[in-house]
């Protein structure tokens, strides 16, 4: 059992409304120190507002929370001294160069000018930004901006770091770089609260996940538990000839049927997708998937392409709420729009 001293975050019943909208509607969170904790949800679910309350940027309307043992309202200064924030909009100054951004933060955090310069150079080098150090940040690519953003968050390495959708809008290569940096941070002892829309991201990085929807935590657990609660992965198959789809449907339904005596007559629920050559079926076991594919090939059904995929956030939501993840046009969606317009 975790004692309060082991907890990075303990939040109870956090509520925040904007006008009529209850953006956060009673969120409870328990985040142990030294781990990555994922907060997973669609746009407008209340993730950003929750982070902003925990980082002392927004006062909760109700509920309370302690971050690293400090109350977020009564002891906001102590919280600020121990956390850093990487917001959804990159939290760096676009009108300054990368180096100037880091020097500014170093000085604000109390470094003398030479020490701030030295620290900036060290971070730029480590994050592969030395060559762009003298360029204005507004000319940076999305990936460079994110790396600078994270570098800015560790000018003084925090005990707890809030990362709000750190890879949204990044290409896969930049995304992997950000993931690598996050792993190193955790290995060095920083606790990370990671907000994301991607189950894959939470799965890759987080030890615990809270799924949040309409301002409430609707499920909690390890990535494995969550995926198990969602059910199996999906086998996606694309055929060479759309005319063979009915046959493929019949073969897959039988080959991937639930096993066990009770399920003798059962067939797997095969989904025919919008693409006339594509179909998919739940498949919890890679061996059975392989056998099913072999069955198709054996029956002369030509396969163009197949994949065994993890459930997406949409599928998690479908399983947890009975409806797909929806985009609420709340302030978080607004923030994304802004970013895309920028």
């Amino acid at each position, binding site marked *: 059992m975790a004692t309060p001293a082991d907890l990075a975050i303990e939040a109870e019943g956090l509520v925040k409304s904007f006008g009529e909208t209850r953006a956060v509607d009673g969120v409870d969170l328990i985040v142990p120190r030294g781990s990555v904790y994922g907060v997973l949800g669609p746009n407008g679910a209340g993730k950003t507002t929750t982070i902003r309350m925990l980082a*002392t*940027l*927004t006062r909760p309307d109700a509920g309370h929370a302690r971050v690293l043992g400090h109350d977020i309202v009564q002891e906001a*200064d102590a919280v*600020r*001294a121990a*956390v*850093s*924030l990487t*917001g*959804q*909009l*990159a*939290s*760096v*100054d*676009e*009108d*300054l*160069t990368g180096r*100037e951004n880091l020097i*500014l*933060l170093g*000085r*604000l*955090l*109390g*470094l003398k000018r030479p*020490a701030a310069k030295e*620290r900036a150079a*060290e*971070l730029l*080098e*480590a*994050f*592969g*930004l*030395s*060559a*762009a150090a003298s360029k204005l940040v507004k000319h940076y*690519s*999305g*990936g*460079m901006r994110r*790396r600078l953003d994270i*570098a*800015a968050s*560790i000018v*003084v*390495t925090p005990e707890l770091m809030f990362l709000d959708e750190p890879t949204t*809008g990044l*290409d896969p290569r930049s995304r992997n*770089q950000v993931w690598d*940096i996050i792993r*190193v*941070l955790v*290995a*060095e002892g920083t606790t990370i609260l990671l907000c994301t829309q991607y189950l894959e991201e939470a799965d890759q990085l987080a030890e615990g996940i809270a799924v949040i929807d309409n301002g409430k935590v609707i499920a909690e657990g390890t990535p494995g538990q969550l995926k198990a609660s969602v059910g199996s992965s999906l086998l996606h198959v694309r055929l060479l000839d759309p005319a063979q789809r009915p046959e493929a449907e019949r073969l897959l339904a039988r080959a991937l049927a639930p096993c066990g005596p009770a399920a003798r007559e059962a067939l797997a629920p095969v989904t025919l997708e919008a693409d006339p050559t594509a179909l998919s079926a739940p498949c919890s076991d890679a061996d059975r998937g392989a056998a099913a594919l072999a069955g198709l090939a054996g029956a002369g059904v030509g396969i163009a392409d197949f994949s065994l995929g993890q459930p997406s956030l949409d599928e998690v939501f479908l399983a947890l709420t009975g409806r797909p993840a929806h985009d609420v046009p709340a302030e978080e969606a607004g923030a994304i729009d*802004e970013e*895309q317009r920028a």
Partner: protein
Amino acid sequence: MTAKMTSPGAPLAMADETAVRQAISSSPRPTPAGSLSAALAFGWRGMLKVKHVPEQLLDVTITPVMFVLMFTYLFGGAIEGSTAKYLDYILPGILVMSVLFTTVYSGVALNTDQTKGVVDRFRSLPIPRSAPLLGSLLGDSVRYLLSGTVIILLGVILGFRPGAGVVGAAAALALVVVFAFGLSWVFTTLGLLLRSPNAVMNAGFMGIFPLTFLSNVFVDPTTLPGPLEAFVKVNPISLLATASRGLMEGDVDGAKIAIVLSVAAALTIVFAPITTRLYRKG
């Protein structure tokens, strides 16, 4: 687009894991900056923006230069009988006007800043809440100083010779900048209350424009109709213009300077806390 890839030719630098590890573990543990050093750091930020985009100084210098030239040579003869005499009268006035117009941009800049993610980072730092505001106004004061210096130099080129010399001109400039610092808190409050930079600009000029013209900046108020003259005489901008003229000419009216400084202090006392509270709320 944030999703844009690294441009061709840019270094395909990968974050180096060992170096990142090293950078994290070698993190310094300083005591966060106090009010003064934090404000100075933010002032430095303001200066850097001017350095990167020097064009932003153009609008605050070219307009007053145009005013000096137009008013002196267009109206000078008609108003004072000679352009040289009118220049003596109007130059301290235009100094006041141009610097006060610049204060509106402090509110515009603050409003623009609020739409950017970097403000969240500033607000999440363990520094005094007023430091970003104080710092950017300190930075802006340097801009006020620049814009005022341009006006005085232009005046000297056109033949303006302040009676109290360089010291008088510098004292007048200092007084104007101090007053502008106080007034700019009004516009930073507006900057945090209104929705867009344009709204701040419009509201700001809607206030400052009539106040400046309904003062003794351009004309001697004794020629005005009674009620207007009464207003012009108590308008703080008139007092500031009169005090600046006095300092430049060497016939200083201590009472007027005291009133000007009191108005600046009053504006700061009222509007600085309002701005800080609004900024804290976000």
